[in-house]
């Protein structure tokens, strides 16, 4: 935010939530104290609408989103949470554009739970799927236009002038002929009490008149994040709060039995109490460090669940190992359920000049967001519950928490502080969110409790990006051109792992990136064989694409080699007639100084090679080229990544570029070093020492070109990731002459 309120978000909640929720600006009825005087960041403002009033379409109830203060600053409650992707700034640009208020004058916070905020395709609310901007762009522009219209109406009355003669300039309504000019802040009280006009009655700006959309405006949250003032869930505190640390069962599903040293731990200085929870034992103390020492010291007899209990949860068996499971996936037979078919695979293979086949696989990876999970819960005297937690879907959490706490929906006030990274970590995942613990402990102690998961407890419960083994086969014609491809993935998708497997359906999240490829290979068949995982699975930045484009684009290079084709030229050929992707692929070629595959000797004497790959994730298009060498230890050095990204149309080119660098870096981290290893049902790594993430000295230079084709707007948070691991692996294959078919590269012996 451009100006930091000295009182951190959560401290204010020490006030009575009752009073705060009655703050005017979210009331549509007149006569309540003026909204213009409202202060307080992060207060649980209730969605406007007098009780019993008909629900308005999500994204149209202006007072539920906007407050304009006497100093002309605009407070905006965002339906999307900020976790580094720049959405608070993007929203300010979009709403500010139509409202005609400088985005820099915006103070943006995450909105509470409520119907008004279900703006993703007008029916749901998640910060994910790279959906935020593209799914709500028109709705949010309309919201700004509606608010502007209300200000014009209020000004018309005040100025005694016909509304048609009024115009605006940033933050002001103007009546040219009489020279009158009134600041929005002076009109807000009248304006926001007016009924919201019919959304159909407002017209949106012609994009050629945009003042802020499409400009690289600076992010609103950068100053407070550069000075330690930003408040995350981890930082929230309320009066009288206790701290809690937990020891999780080493395997999901185990239940706490006897705590052998219970009395000892209870007697530790500063310990308040010890509690058995679902799959964990918690120690509550006045300070976190004491709680943490207590939790670490607990000697718990963990007990196996009954068969019936096992069936209800994702029970982790004591003999599970990722090594054996990888082998199982690699050896899984069967044609699977079809996700995409085209042409006639059988005759294409029958008449092929040459065929190629190979099995590739991916690995489990952690979200490893730098802020471990935490939750603060407080039951209020009136029976309501305030809860502060990192989340990407407030209404979904509200429903689940209400159930857990035995409350009505409207008794649960969800507070969603900004996220210290998310990458898919903060959806509802069974066993992976601390809120049940915070609720139980707050209930048990009668005081507010904040649960913090240490990194070790976080990694023990972090649900994983699925792994897959994909059997590929390809057919080439006499000229070496690919004419058929089949990919059968043995995998469990994140959606089916959470919502239940439907034997008649493919989980599209499991196969995306194998499906939806743009290459003109006339005969193709993409299928999934469902193999249930004992591990808990999750969405991870770019979801199925995060592994599948690596798998597919590697095999495409194998087909290129088999047909004696250059991989870049082959891709261009397969994209003939596809102007958008041809432009994109050429753009990344140019960005890299012209395609050259190598191996070649760099000016510093090192042997290097380049690889290329493409991906079509989340409505956007990406193409990447990477240059690699091997160091003396035989480890891969990624020198440069060039990436061209086409999200169709854009809001903030500066944010897009930085998001592309961010996503590309995560792709580098994944392909070089990340892998969750389980042995005997437990993860080997419990912290960054044994689960390293990309450190600065292994980060490549990343060069980004944003290509704006004008196509329908796509996503940006995730799409730049999937092409990068594939481009790097293809470069390494060229350099070493050995085909890379799995990640991470650090675990392969590559030295030639």
């Amino acid at each position, binding site marked *: 935010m451009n100006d930091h309120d000295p009182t951190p978000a959560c401290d204010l909640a020490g006030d009575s939530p009752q009073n705060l929720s009655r703050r005017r600006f979210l009331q549509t009825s007149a006569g309540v104290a003026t909204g213009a005087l409202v202060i307080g960041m992060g207060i649980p403002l209730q969605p406007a609408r007098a009780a019993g009033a008909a629900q308005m379409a999500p994204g149209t109830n202006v007072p539920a989103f906007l407050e304009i203060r006497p100093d002309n600053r605009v407070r905006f409650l965002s339906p999307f949470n900020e976790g580094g992707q720049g959405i608070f700034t993007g929203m300010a640009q979009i709403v500010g554009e139509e409202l005609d208020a400088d985005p820099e004058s915006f103070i943006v916070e995450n909105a509470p739970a409520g119907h008004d905020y279900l703006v993703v395709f007008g029916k749901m609310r998640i910060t994910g799927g790279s959906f935020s901007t593209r799914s709500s762009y028109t709705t949010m522009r309309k919201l700004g236009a509606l608010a502007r219209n209300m200000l014009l109406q209020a000004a018309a009355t005040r100025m005694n002038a016909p509304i048609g003669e009024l115009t605006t300039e940033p933050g002001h309504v103007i009546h040219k002929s009489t020279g009158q000019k009134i600041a929005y802040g002076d009109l807000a009280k009248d304006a926001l009490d007016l009924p919201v006009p019919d959304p159909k009655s407002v017209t949106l700006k012609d994009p050629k008149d945009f003042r802020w959309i499409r400009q690289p405006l600076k992010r609103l949250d950068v100053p407070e994040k550069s000075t330690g003032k930003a408040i995350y869930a981890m930082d929230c505190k309320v009066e009288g709060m206790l701290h809690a640390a937990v020891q999780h069962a080493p395997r999901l599903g185990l239940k706490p039995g006897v705590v052998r040293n219970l009395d000892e731990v209870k007697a530790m200085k500063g310990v308040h109490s010890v509690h058995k929870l679902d799959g964990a034992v918690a120690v509550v103390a006045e300070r976190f*460090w004491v709680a943490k020492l207590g939790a670490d010291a607990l000697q718990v007899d963990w007990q196996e669940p009954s068969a019936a209990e096992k069936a209800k949860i994702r029970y982790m068996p004591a003999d599970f190992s990722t090594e054996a499971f990888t082998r199982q996936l690699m050896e899984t037979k069967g044609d699977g359920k079809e996700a995409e078919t085209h042409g006639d695979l059988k005759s294409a293979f029958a008449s092929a000049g040459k065929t190629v086949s190979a099995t590739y696989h991916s690995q489990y990876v952690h979200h490893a967001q730098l802020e471990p999970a935490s939750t603060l819960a407080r039951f209020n005297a009136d029976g309501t519950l305030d809860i502060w937690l990192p989340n990407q879907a407030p209404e979904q959490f509200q429903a689940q928490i209400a159930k857990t706490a035995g409350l009505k929906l409207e008794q649960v006030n969800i507070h969603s502080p900004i996220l210290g990274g998310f990458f898919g970590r903060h959806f509802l995942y069974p066993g992976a969110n601390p809120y049940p613990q915070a609720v139980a402990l707050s209930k048990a102690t009668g005081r507010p409790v904040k649960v913090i998961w240490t990194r070790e407890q976080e990694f023990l419960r972090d649900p994983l990006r699925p792994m897959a083994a994909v059997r590929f086969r390809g057919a080439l014609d006499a000229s070496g051109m690919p004419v058929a491809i089949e990919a059968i993935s043995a995998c469990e998708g994140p959606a089916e792992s959470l919502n239940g497997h439907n034997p008649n359906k493919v989980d599209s999240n499991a196969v995306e990136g194998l499906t939806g490829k743009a290459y003109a290979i006339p005969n193709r068949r993409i299928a999934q064989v469902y193999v249930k995982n004992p591990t808990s699975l999750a969405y991870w930045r770019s979801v199925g694409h995060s592994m599948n484009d690596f798998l597919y684009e590697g095999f495409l290079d194998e087909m290129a080699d088999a047909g004696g084709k250059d991989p870049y030229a082959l891709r261009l050929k397969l994209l003939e007639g596809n102007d958008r992707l041809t432009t994109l692929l050429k753009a990344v070629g140019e960005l890299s100084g012209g395609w050259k595959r190598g191996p070649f000797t760099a000016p510093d004497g090192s042997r290097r090679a380049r690889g290329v790959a493409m991906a079509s994730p989340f409505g956007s298009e990406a193409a990447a080229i990477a240059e690699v060498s091997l160091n003396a230890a035989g480890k891969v050095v990624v020198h440069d990544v060039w990436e061209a990204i086409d999200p169709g149309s854009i809001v903030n080119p500066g944010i897009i570029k930085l998001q592309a660098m961010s996503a590309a870096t995560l792709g580098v981290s994944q392909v070089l070093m990340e892998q969750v290893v389980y042995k005997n049902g437990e993860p080997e790594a419990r912290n960054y020492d044994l689960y390293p993430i990309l450190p600065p000295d292994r980060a490549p230079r990343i060069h980004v070109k944003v290509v704006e084709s004008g196509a329908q707007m796509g996503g940006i948070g995730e799409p730049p990731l999937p092409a990068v691991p594939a481009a790097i692996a293809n470069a390494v294959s060229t350099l070493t002459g050995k085909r890379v078919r799995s990640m991470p590269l650090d675990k392969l012996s590559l030295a030639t």
Partner: protein
Amino acid sequence: MQLYVNGQMVEVNSDPDTPLLWVIRDELGMTGTKFGCGLAQCGACSVMLDGKIVRSCVTPLSSVGDAQVTTIEAIEADPVGQRVVEKWIAHQVPQCGYCQSGQVMAATALLKENAKPSRDEIAAAMVNLCRCGTYNVINDAMLDLAGLGANKGETL
């Protein structure tokens, strides 16, 4: 026990074994210093002790003695820190921001000791992890601060 934090003497009663991080966050209520790993792996908890960077999650309170503790809360009171913050904003460094208190502290500690670090010296000092991949922009900001002709604002 007495502690000197951001130029002020404060009285603290945490156990002497308590890591400085938790004294700062829980007892002193300053939450700018972050907890990421607790194992000296990530650097999110970086603070300065007498101007030198330390990872406060593995620095016991008892080891601090009368050294001056500087946390991110006081960063703009330091002219070098102020310049670092300015460049962090100019280069739009933070994404989620969670690692950035530590990054800004590390940058400030380096520049206080060595106003004109070389590229290698920058690389040796800026070792904190960032899961959001801000390494390129951190480097741009550092080269700019070191007067090494960074492509200022190139990333935007």
